[in-house]
């Protein structure tokens, strides 16, 4: 059995489904949105956040702690820096029982608030098979499971595999031109059909960047039969993550005016749109 690749576990989440939730961020994604607020999910499992602000050598502090460091011409990898310059982007491998035990410490809160566990990422569908034993345990505990997903599963088998476990689907739409895929709408229509047939709770989300054009968005939404939507204004709050991962960062935050116009246009065209402000 492969272990799950998780970047972080966030308790007390209030935006990732009904009630209060614990969100598990999983690695891997078929998209690489340049504004992604969890860019570490796009990296390999052996990668690190590198915080050069903590590097003694780079900040001009001479210290015996740096003896042997690769930055000082030594053999010790940066990942072993005692001051903590490096932090792994993947949590220490955790077997499913331990993971379940950790997230279920908030079971009473899930029950009282109507919340539960949310799988997010990255794209959790990529680890669908590995997730099954974990979801089995959560299901047996009677805790609700939500999944934030692109739903971009070409073969549909992963969606079908997870369908019995997921109570609430949060579908993150990839309508921006930066994410253009010729087969996107077709795959989405097929997968949505499966979800709709199962009468599961479905919520749609869309990140607004200025490349999104109203007409194109409306056509795509109509094609996917989306009538309600949570709109997120793109933000640059993850800039420091990009720096620590050595990735280029471009701020896609749109102007408030463009964002409001887009929002109004959606509502005017019978797409009931709420703003999700984080």
């Amino acid at each position, binding site marked *: 059995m492969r272990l799950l690749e998780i970047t972080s576990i966030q308790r007390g989440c209030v935006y990732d489904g009904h*009630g209060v939730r614990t969100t598990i961020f999983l690695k891997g994604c078929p998209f690489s949105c340049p504004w992604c607020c969890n860019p570490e999910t796009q990296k390999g499992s052996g990668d690190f956040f590198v915080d050069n602000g903590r590097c003694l050598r780079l900040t001009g502090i001479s*210290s*015996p702690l740096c003896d042997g460091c690769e930055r000082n011409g030594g053999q010790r990898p940066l990942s072993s820096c005692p001051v903590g310059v490096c932090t792994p982007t993947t949590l220490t491998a955790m077997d499913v029982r331990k993971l379940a035990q950790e997230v279920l410490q908030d079971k009473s809160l899930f029950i009282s608030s109507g919340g539960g566990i949310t799988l997010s990422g990255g794209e959790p569908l990529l680890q669908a098979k590995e997730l099954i034993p974990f979801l089995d345990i959560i299901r047996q505990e009677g805790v609700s499971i939500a999944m934030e997903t692109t739903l971009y599963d070409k073969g549909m088998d992963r969606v079908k595999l997870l369908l019995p476990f997921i109570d609430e689907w949060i579908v993150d739409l990839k309508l921006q031109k930066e994410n253009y895929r010729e087969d996107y709408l077709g795959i989405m229509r097929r997968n949505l059909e499966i979800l709709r047939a199962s009468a599961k709770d479905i919520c749609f989300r869309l990140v607004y960047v200025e490349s999104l054009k109203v007409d194109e968005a409306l056509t795509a939404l109509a094609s996917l039969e989306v009538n309600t939507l949570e709109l997120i204004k793109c933000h640059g709050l993850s800039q420091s993550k990009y720096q620590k991962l050595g990735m280029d960062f471009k701020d896609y935050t749109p102007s408030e005016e463009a964002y409001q116009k887009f929002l109004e246009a959606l509502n005017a065209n019978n797409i009931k749109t709420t703003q999700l402000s984080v």
Partner: protein
Amino acid sequence: MIKNTIKKALKLVISYRLRMWRRECNRMHKFLNLPFWGCMFRIKLYVDKRPGSPSSARLFNKMSCKAEVRARDNYLYPFDPFRKRIPPQGTAPLASITPDYGLIIKSDLDKIKERLERCAQSEFRETMLLTINGIERKAGHMSRGEYRDGRYRRMALLFPDILHRDCDTLDEALQKLLFYNALFWQAGHFHNGLGRLDLILYPYYRNDVKRGVIDREKAKQMLMDFCHILGSQTPFKSVTLIGDTGQYILLGGVDKDGVTVDNELTHLFLEVFTEMRIPDPKVILRVNASTPKETWKEALRCIMNGCGSPLLMNETLIMRNMVEFGYDKEDVWNVGTSACWEPLIIGKSSDQNNPFLSILACEPLNAAIRSGKDYPTFEALLVDVKKGLVQEAQKIIKDKEYDHSPLMSMFMTECLEKGKDFSHGGSKYMYQGAQLLGLPNLINSIINIKEYVYDKRIVSLDDCRDIIKRNYEEHEDLRQLFGGNQDRKFGKASQEVLALTDDIIEVVSEGIGKVTANGNPVKFGLSSPNYIEQARSFPATLDGRKAGEPFAVHISPISSSIDISEVMDFASSIDYPANCLNGNVVDFILPSAYQKRQDKFVDILMDAFAKGVFQLQLNVLDKKTLIDAKAHPEKYPTLVVRVWGFSTYFNDLPEEYKDNLIARAETYETA
């Protein structure tokens, strides 16, 4: 010889009076921005040479009769802050008490006098009767006062009659309460709590509404006026910082029959504080499993509005510890607090919960390192740290000679029965309390030493000694190392951190359990108000803190990697020994996501309290606003912040307290 002795004694007395005079002038000059010389001419000191004696009562009568009466916000308030009663040198003031206003509102001075006539203790009887005489004289003066406004004339005419009977209306009850509250302040008591006002005022409110005398809106206006007048002299009532008045209104909690108090006044008070957004008085909400969700929601709305209130208090846990500690089970339903969060029993306690300096948690570790002793193992070092901690805890606890209080004694049944003053054997309970300061700093320091000195062996004890001695000079690398945001830090609910925290708390608990103060067992808590004051002269600590920097606040993480869910888990997993009940507050700055989704945050709070969080206070600030407010105070005249156990205007804080809040906001924003 005799002449010399008299001269010496006289000199001492005069110098004490001068010192007190200077202290008061300085305080008023600082808090009120009044010219120092102006204060000197206005302040009138009344040095009480024999508290608890008839002469003391005469002095109080003289002072209170001359005290000016404030007529504002529709009530009369006879507290004159320029007349100060000073207890004799070496006598600790009586502070942080919540009188039983339920009893006070119903009180009849004639009946108290009747009871006193039967009292065999002549000095006590005479002192008390003289005090009552003074109160009646004061009331007489008030009734004859000349007020242009008809409202104030009507209120004045309630006196002295209202002091000889129960009140008929909410309006009367508020006025009677204010009258006695002002006298407590005038007598030199400070941190005067107001107590369970929703419980004790509700019968008057209900009757008024039933009879059509007032409606809900009118009552709300009265409560607003009441709060305004109490808060109108905040700088005069403050002790260390402006806002530190201890004027708290306690809401919720169980009544004598174990039924949770949740009436119209509970909600009205929360509404009033949500709308008024004033820092003084403050609100504490006692919560339990039966506290309705709607009340939690209203409390949260109040917190979100930025008045810093209410502080939430887990009464189930607190009452359990109180009983285990030594309070009677039948009394704990009426738990109140001393100003901030230290529990006592309203109407039965003369507990002094904060009379000592705080126990410096980091001192024993620093001392062990400074000693130069070679500790071959971590365990050997820890043994010495624990021994030192016991000594440190026991060292600060001392017997004290306290002031007397005929006024408080008057409203405590036991005092009248025993013929003894409130603080000298009259009250049922007179426990004292201590505070452990800098526990998070100690835990993080110990974890650092274990990891870096003993496990990884990359730092030596000599390095640590040098750090303490030279304040990290030439050891910036080790400061970075020790202050790193590793997961193994105070606030992380891991087995290792919790076990160490419990172990240290247990050591302090046992140490304190072996000593007494004034013959009584002593409580302690983890929430000290002295995290800046006592840190000023304290050397560097091995958690990355430099000499003079503030200690961590209460049960709050120093690390930005620990979020509110984690710290509440941590706090609810701590094993609080019975005597560890003198304030164990989680203090956090609320993340903005929760400010936007209050409905869900209520669930988080309720769950955390069900799991065992002791007490919680929240600020709703962001770093950007605070920095701007520091640079441009004129733009933020009403920005309220929560400091240790009280709320105050940000602009009224000294710069170092502002910096401390900004630094903490930054830490928690990244959590």
